[in-house]
């Protein structure tokens, strides 16, 4: 699962990915959450299938494959219900509230590029910061 997650939202030099976010820790938890009960068997079977495909390539399991071969196998299955369900778990694990076990070290916020503050004040973006008739001050 960890190798799979790392290919869904990969890590790179500038930004963390699902791996740094600890998405798998969330997914461990999700496997026991009633809300995800319907998809857990699908995800488990799909992960086993990834390992089976890896063995036909002579590796022990999916995680042992080179990243390039992992991607090649994922391309074979990326329109299946398993893939959609597993991808969803990776995304949720990357962005959900850290209390669920993932989204560590603010990884989710860093990936989408948001400031982390509980509240904000205007101007919020670039366009409303430009002088002009549109700018409306709070007390205008």
């Amino acid at each position, binding site marked *: 699962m960890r190798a799979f997650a790392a290919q869904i939202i990969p890590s790179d030099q500038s930004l963390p*990915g699902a791996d740094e976010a600890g998405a798998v820790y969330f997914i461990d938890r999700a496997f026991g959450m009633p809300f995800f009960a319907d998809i857990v068997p699908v995800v488990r079977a799909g992960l086993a299938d990834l390992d089976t495909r890896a063995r036909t390539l002579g590796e022990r399991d999916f995680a042992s494959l080179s990243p390039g071969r992992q991607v090649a196998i994922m391309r074979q299955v990326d329109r299946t219900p398993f893939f959609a369900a597993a991808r969803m778990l990776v995304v949720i694990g990357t962005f959900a*509230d850290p209390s669920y076990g993932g989204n560590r070290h603010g990884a989710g916020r860093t*990936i989408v590029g948001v400031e982390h503050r*509980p509240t*904000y004040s205007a101007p919020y*973006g670039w366009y409303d910061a430009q002088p002009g008739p*549109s700018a*409306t001050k*709070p007390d205008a």
Partner: protein
Amino acid sequence: MTQRAYGESETVDFVIVGSGAAGGVLAKELATAGFDLVVLEAGPWQQPSQFTHDELAVERENAMLNLAFEPIQTIRANESEPARLNTGRALAYRRGVGGSSVHFAANYWRFRPIDFKERSRWGSISGTGFADWPITYEELEPYYTKVDWEIGVSGAAGPFDPRRSRPYPLPPLPNKASGVVLERGARALGLHAQVSPLAILSKPYDGRSPCLACGHCSYYGCEFGAKSSTLATVIPKAVATGRCEIRTESTAVRVETNPSGRATGVVYRDRDGRERRQRSRAVIIAANGAETTRLLLLSTSSAFPNGLANSSGNVGRYIMFNGHAGTFGRFEHPLNEYKGPVATRMVHDFYDADPKRGFYGGGGIDARFNYQPIGFALGVLPNDVPTWGAEFKRALTDYFTHSVRFYAHITSLPVATNTITLDHDHPDRWGRPGLCLTFTEHPDDMKAKHWFRDRTEELMVAAGAARLWTQPVLPADGSVHLLGTARMGNDPSESVVDRYHRAHDVRNLFICDGSSFVTSGRGQPTMTIQALAFRAADHIARFARSHDI
């Protein structure tokens, strides 16, 4: 907050079913007027400090909604089809004190005079119950103003506004970047962007704090009390009178009537599922267009074999959701829509229906991107962006802070065959029959969605988006706008309640919520639901005082 508690044997003046947008207002007005009342609320009483920004719980698990309590609803296109599970939006509303006013986006558009007399202007539309309201804008205007001032609405007059008797009590909230680009697009097309009125405080008001721009209005509860939900506004005042008890986790199952056809109280299930009864001199149902329907249809007796107040057969009929359609755009610079309220500018140039369009339909367009990261990553990116891998990740970074949607809020027609009915095969946890939605969009409603999507696309081009994309226009499968299922009218054979929200069939039963709507308006129904509730409360109090109830 300590509150009055009525004993089981006491008969109160009113039982109000529901503490949402309408029920909260009715409770405050009637308790303040000196009446004793019990509000039955199906959900819990959450404090603002219990509201979170937990997207998984709120937006995925629907923790605050009826859908968490009652996960199965059914849907079918017409009566001859078997009902299937509704895996779409379904009939959604919040359970809990304050109802859906707790999680609304707080857009407070008034209806305009045309909304109340559109049938006379436009003519009949086949297959629909398109009709004038029995009241006019002028009659409701004082109550719109009352909503503005009683709960706190921030805004500024716009070029197409109807007459108002008093200015807004609060200035607009700061314009967002999305509002600036919508203004830019509108100007280029000769249209007019105006301030979106919001039931969110721009300044301290009535002992409450102003908005701190946390960016979690839509779907979430406001932990600062700045959003003018009934939880934050009128309910504390109702309780403070010492005459109002909000009885939580109390799910109404039946309105009881006596042999002379008068309502005598409401039977409900408490949190443990035990059946209990609250007697009252009159009953007010304000449970939203879905639950009001269910309660009326469940309240059968020999005198009311088809459900209470249903001699017209119109209880549950004419469900309207408001149509929606939009265009996404990505801009060169950051918009940062994750900050601030949902929408600060809107375009109302297309509000009126126009025969030249070739269909009936009108609406308004605002600029918003009310997505949190999970919903955004799973459902918003353009179709040509890969769903995984390095390009997916790059898009997450490039689009979240730079994107917005121009979003149209559109009329829905009251179609006679669009209904909410009881589904005996899928009961809820208290054994009440579930809800089945029978729904096929009127062709004009689909045409209106397409037409408005084209307008949002033109606006997005004119606003200078670096790229734009749309989502397909689909028929509705549910909504949080639950309108029209106990419509108001002068003719008892065509409507459920009269112009004062009194049930035609039951003298001491009143129904006031989104179900009262005769036509849908252009989205954003809550302002009108509350204006109706303030008006209904005035009349109900008058009837009660003169023993005309």
